[in-house]
């Protein structure tokens, strides 16, 4: 079976700075894939290219067998790519349920259906009790979950999670991990950017490590964390000795 998502030789330059260089990755259906790497590795850039925030300087992005490189973000969403933002972008003047309804309107224009779907998704994410609260009144961890709920309401095939587990308390991040697992169990493929290794590693099926804009290594999380190249990228060369 073909991969759900494939990037081919993606290169992205920002006036002199090469953020991604010749990156080719693929994500299979039903996988949870972690995109990790130290700060400045180019994770967010790659992530934004896949979501369609901007177009790559070179290379191709294939989704579900189709070249989506030239498609704007809204059309990628219609084709089944849902995303969250690292810095949460709730619709602050709208209530929680209204935020989610915006997402569910991609699949239906019937307001009753859209609202029902939004409630389902909120219940799934454990936010239904807060449905009628203004998004601006949510605490940070709830805003993160709202981001996920909104993206899920668009019924994505691929869910892109940008550091949804970062900066949470241990209890909150454990709940986040459970949520991601449940999302995958509904048949949605997950690609997540994280840099908190100890949270991501037990969760993902496969990890792709980026460093200096290139794919450093990819494989099973247990293998990746032991790889000397990864350790040296995160901690510097000195620590890689004897690993």
């Amino acid at each position, binding site marked *: 079976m073909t991969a759900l998502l494939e990037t081919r030789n993606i290169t992205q330059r920002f006036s002199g700075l090469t953020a991604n260089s010749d990156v080719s990755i693929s994500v299979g259906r039903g996988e949870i894939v972690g995109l990790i790497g130290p700060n400045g590795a180019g994770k967010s850039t790659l992530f934004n290219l896949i979501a369609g925030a901007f177009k790559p300087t070179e290379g191709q992005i294939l989704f579900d067998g189709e070249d989506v490189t030239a498609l704007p973000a809204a059309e990628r969403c219609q084709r089944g790519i849902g995303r969250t933002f690292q810095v949460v972008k709730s619709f602050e003047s709208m209530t929680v349920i209204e935020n989610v309804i915006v997402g569910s309107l991609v699949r239906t224009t019937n307001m009753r259906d859209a609202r029902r779907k939004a409630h389902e998704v909120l219940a799934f994410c454990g936010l239904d009790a807060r449905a009628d609260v203004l998004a601006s009144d949510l605490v940070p961890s709830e805003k993160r979950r709202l981001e996920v709920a909104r993206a899920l309401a668009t019924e994505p095939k691929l869910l892109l999670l940008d550091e949804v587990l970062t900066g949470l308390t241990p209890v909150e991040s454990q*709940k986040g991990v459970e949520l991601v697992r449940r999302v995958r169990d509904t048949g949605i493929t997950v690609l997540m950017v994280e840099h908190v290794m100890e949270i991501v590693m037990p969760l993902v099926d496969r990890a792709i490590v980026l460093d200096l804009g290139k794919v450093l290594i990819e494989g099973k999380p247990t293998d990746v964390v032991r790889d000397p190249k990864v350790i040296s990228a995160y901690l510097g060369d000195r620590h890689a000795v004897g690993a």
Partner: protein
Amino acid sequence: MDKAFVQRRRRDLILAAFLAAIAAAVPFFVKDVYVQNIMVLTLMYAALSQSWNILSGYCGQISLGHALYFGLGAYTTAILFTKFGVLPWFGMLAGGLISAVIAMALGYPCFRLGGHYFVIATIVIAEITLLLFQNWDFAGAALGIDIPVRRDSWLTFQFTRSKLPYFYFALALACVAWFVTWWLEDSKWGYWWRAVKDNPLAAESLGVDVFNSKMGAAALSAFLVAIGGSFYAQFVSYIDPESVMGFQFSLLMALPAVLGGIGTLWGPMLGAVILIPLTELTRSYIGGSGRGVDLIVYGGLIIAISLARPQGLVSLFSRKPKPVVQPAREAVAS
């Protein structure tokens, strides 16, 4: 499911019908022509402000150039009537459509401008059009157009003996503008507009067509405002560029919505009911002496409301949001 939401929607509709019925009955008790005149203007500005609110309140694209569409509506009707004998009803429709098309043509470049630059563009374009009309001989240039008065008739929408027909038309227009807003509020468009206003980037990631959302809001808003302009031309039966396209119209459309509550269903109505009579009364009772006392009072009131109620007066009526007690019982495992 979601009974509260359905109830709130229904309550708004019933309240609107109730208020409209009361308004319709007022002329039976108030016979004073001066007061009736103020009522007509109040309803007209309520309709205009409600229409402005669609683009600027819900969709968040602040326009301070809506006088352009008001003027286009007035001029289209007046020109078609005086030069070609076209009845104002058709002129009204034509003016609305022309305005909607022009709004989209202007939106095409302008919606790429961010924030303040968009506002400036709307002001500038309206001012340029004003200058063009002042120099356009066919449209009467700076002298304007005198609409010849014929017999009182609904056909030509001219009434010299009574203001009541105008009153009921303005009331109907306000009701239509309100109802359109009410209806769109719980539709894909309504949600898209608010999403675009709050965060265009996030909206895009959720499949919202940001650009076309703005275009749709601009077209609808301009269409309704132009109908108001057509009405005004018939109401005053004499128009010139300054009196239908001047900057003050842009302000008088924006202010009621801003004071009443921008981006809310009732804000423009409430704002117009307070602001327009006040404008007229201060002008006739304490204005006219050439010292501008009326404007001082008027400006002072706006400042007072802005300071005391930055969310708009309509927030006085809304239920207090529940205090944030325990954020979703975070500790309870799901």
